């Protein structure tokens, strides 16, 4: 592998990681901070993408469409919270898993009925189309740089809110002992509702941002959901910094693994078997990394304080 290729692959890994981070951030907020396992986070991501498809084509403007999609995602989050989630906060994790699985079935099917089964897409906005030249003829899409930037911005904002503000403290406190927070005079339910809706909006944001580069199709959230869980477990549950680091690791490992596993194995294997082994291994790679991380540090790389 040449140096320039390596740089591009690192950028690719970074960008993939950032996309994962956008999904994982909402998940870790709701899961880590509020101690709620929301399997429906993946379908919320999918809905964000579909809403973007609709609103972008309706308004003809990416930015306007994005804003409308976010608003719709927020509303959807509030509705879901009101109808389903608030009744599950005090329930067992497994009850949450089962109920949110029901939501996955419902929303996946609803999306298929509303938007059809065929993949859809959103065009890359005009002002972010085009490429940046990175040495000897290797181009890198501007939109992907924008995506990286958006991810970093969201990450910084979230970290600040959760770690540095009183709202963040109350959230963390509420996760471990909600009745006590309430008994000290804070309306924890309202707080949870806002955070939950915000988490949904974040998932929607990730979906909307991914729509111009990925195919928008029913079930697109299911793979992402598992990857997002891998990310937050590797990084340390409930920690925004952890999710960020975990996302970068997963993004880089997956990207670099896929692009260099064959070359690596070919050093000491016949090309045909290197290919076969390489393909199987690179699929397994992130799981191997996760198992290794958890074996050495069961609480993840950068666990939230107090969750070790």
């Amino acid at each position, binding site marked *: 592998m040449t140096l320039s290729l390596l740089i591009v692959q690192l950028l690719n890994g970074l960008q993939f990681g950032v996309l994962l981070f956008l999904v994982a951030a909402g998940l870790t907020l709701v899961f880590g901070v509020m101690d709620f396992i929301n399997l429906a986070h993946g379908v919320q991501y999918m809905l964000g993408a579909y809403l973007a498809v609709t609103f972008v084509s309706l308004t003809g403007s990416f930015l306007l469409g994005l804003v409308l999609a976010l608003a719709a995602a927020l509303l959807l989050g509030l509705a879901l919270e009101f109808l389903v989630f608030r009744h599950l906060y005090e329930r067992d994790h497994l009850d949450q898993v089962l109920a949110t699985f029901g939501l996955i079935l419902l929303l996946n099917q609803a999306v298929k009925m509303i938007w059809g089964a065929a993949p859809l897409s959103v065009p890359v906005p005009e002002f972010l189309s085009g490429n940046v030249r990175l040495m000897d003829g290797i181009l890198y899409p501007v939109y992907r740089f924008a995506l990286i930037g958006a991810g970093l911005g969201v990450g910084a904002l979230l970290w600040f809110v959760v770690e540095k503000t009183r709202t963040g403290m109350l959230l963390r406190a509420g996760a471990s002992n909600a009745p006590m927070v309430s008994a000290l005079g804070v309306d924890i339910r309202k707080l949870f509702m806002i955070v939950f809706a915000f988490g949904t909006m974040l998932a929607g944001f990730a979906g909307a941002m991914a729509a111009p580069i990925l195919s928008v199709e029913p079930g697109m959230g299911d793979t992402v959901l598992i990857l997002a869980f891998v990310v937050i477990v590797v990084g340390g549950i409930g920690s925004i910094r952890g999710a960020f680091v975990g996302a970068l690791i997963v993004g880089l490992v997956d990207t670099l693994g896929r692009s260099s596993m*064959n070359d690596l194995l070919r050093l000491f294997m016949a090309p045909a078997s290197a290919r076969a082994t390489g393909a199987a291994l690179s699929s397994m790679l992130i799981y191997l990394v996760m198992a290794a991380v958890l074996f050495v540090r069961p609480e993840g790389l950068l666990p939230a304080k107090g969750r070790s």
Partner: protein
Amino acid sequence: QAQEPIKIGVVSVLTGPAASLGQQVRDGFQLAVDKNGGKLGGVPVKITVIDDELKPDVAVERVRSFVESEKPAFVVGPVFSNILGAIAKPVLDSGAFLISPNAGPSTMAGKACNKNFFVTSYQNDQVHEVLGKYAQDQNYKKAYIIAPNYQAGKDSLAGFKRYFKGEIVDEVYAPLNAMDFSADLAKIASSKPDVVFAFLPGGLGVNFVKQWSQAGLQGKIPFLSAFTVDESTLPAQQDAAVGLYGGMTWAPNMDNAQTKDFVKAYEAAYKIVPGSYAQQSYDAAMLIDSAVKAAGGTGNPDKLRDAIKKADFTSLRGKFKFNTNGYPIQDFYLVKVAKRADGKFQTEIAQKVFSDYADPHAKDCALK
């Protein structure tokens, strides 16, 4: 008259990302039946649509209970080879005819061929061979080839290499759920092959093609593909796919009357441009129509089989005949994506690559 209807099961995937293919199979078949006034071969038909969910064990369970309770004369389906492998045994054991409108695995073309199994599409390898042959004919020297990491993916790249004799700069197996191909695209950009061959069905293809165009590769490197740019993915790929090549036995602009009627009727009924999935399924219905007519019903399986083997129907492809193993012998084309005047996208025939092409596995089949 109170005629006993022919029972037909249509097994197709209607759940998950692949559902858009499955819907074409279901709708193409239904269109043919509707066109015939709810009858095939003059006999009313009762169609049961079974969603295989792309899960082999679910498919087996549903199909088995269907054949056990309904005793159908025909089962049409499925889209994917791994589902075919799962349902073939219960269907064929029940004595029904199994007509595959899409999946054409090599296993069932050779040793494991069955007298009651027919394919109205092609043997899977052939489509990939079309592109290999074309790449060879163009005298490309270096090819970058990519497919998903599963059996059909491996068969695909093997098929391409059967005819392409140049250098393979890289042979890549992507995860089945890959979303982001930027790593592969970077590799392509840096290794500068003469041609890229991809087998990336469904959402994989949408992602790849969009990112291909965003990476600025469109128009720079010839892009040949199988099941990567077709009518099921074009609505999402749109302009990003225009000018890309695929291999097929048919395209919506095929120059014959039956195709014109079919495309028009399909678009009117389902609001999308039909792809090969719909076309092959439509042909499957027409095949049944001709056979039932010739055999005078479904009462005599041997007569029915002989009638099916004759394939005496007007295929949307024009000429069509069966090999001894139940797979077709037919022409294959290079197709190219184009934007129609009405703004929709479709594949169009670019050139013929094989004539009367039979799959190589037929020689392993004991049937005569």
